[in-house]
């Protein structure tokens, strides 16, 4: 279920339910809140913010704020957010958000859901190819290389 490289996290999961059902679980803000553990105040609308209190035990003092990007029915749902915005004293709005994408595909009688969260390295997309060529793959890999190097030293 896990595949991580460069600056992105990618998850794939087979769900034994129709794309229509999965779409509702993702984009109905109350259903989203149920599995994501957040009490969202308003429905998701492209180009708009949706906010809410996290209900995950131990994180109830935190607010989630997503800016919806795309909603292509039963195919693609994406939003921007600050994944490590966990300190209530800090204003994260000026920092570069990451992009979360949910891609749905029919798979047999069920749905294959691919979730990616990208942008951790905050390199603008236009520069990314070049940067990756130079680094042979983003900073996550680079960190591992440096750590390995240091561990062996």
């Amino acid at each position: 279920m896990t595949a991580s490289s460069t600056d992105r996290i990618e998850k794939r999961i087979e769900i034994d339910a129709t794309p229509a059902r999965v779409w509702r679980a993702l984009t109905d803000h109350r259903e989203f809140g149920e599995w994501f553990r957040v009490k969202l105040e308003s429905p998701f609308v492209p180009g708009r913010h949706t906010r809410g209190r996290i209900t995950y035990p131990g994180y109830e003092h935190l607010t989630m704020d997503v800016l919806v990007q795309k909603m292509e029915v039963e195919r693609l749902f994406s939003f921007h957010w600050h994944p490590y915005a966990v300190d209530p004293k800090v204003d994260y709005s000026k920092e570069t958000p990451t992009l979360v994408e949910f891609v749905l595909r029919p798979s047999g009688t069920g749905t294959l859901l691919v979730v990616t969260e990208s942008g951790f390295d905050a390199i603008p997309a236009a520069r990314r190819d070049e940067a990756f060529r130079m680094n042979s793959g983003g900073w996550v890999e680079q960190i591992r290389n440096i750590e390995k190097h240091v561990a062996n030293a």
Partner: protein
Amino acid sequence: MAARDSSRVFAALGDPTRLRLLAKLGEGNGSSIASLTAGSKLTRQAITKHLGVLRKAGLIRGRRRGRERLFALQPAALDRARRSLDDISRQWDEALVRLKALAER
């Protein structure tokens, strides 16, 4: 939680020049600005600026030796950044298991 540190670390790492500097610093006990400038197309001033960003993110530390300042990698900061990414990854795993359960109910 070191979330604020992590976001600063992520930002510091989002630059190929700084990644190369880090890799270079990982090779020794400490490097001077002069030695980092040698063999680089960057000016001393540019390298000093990048080192400042890395230092503020806690990724490197500088110490004085005579008239020089030597910079060295702080592996713990890299480790924290990687762990915070691992945390985010794990949180997704858990959330998607709950999503699956909800949709299949």
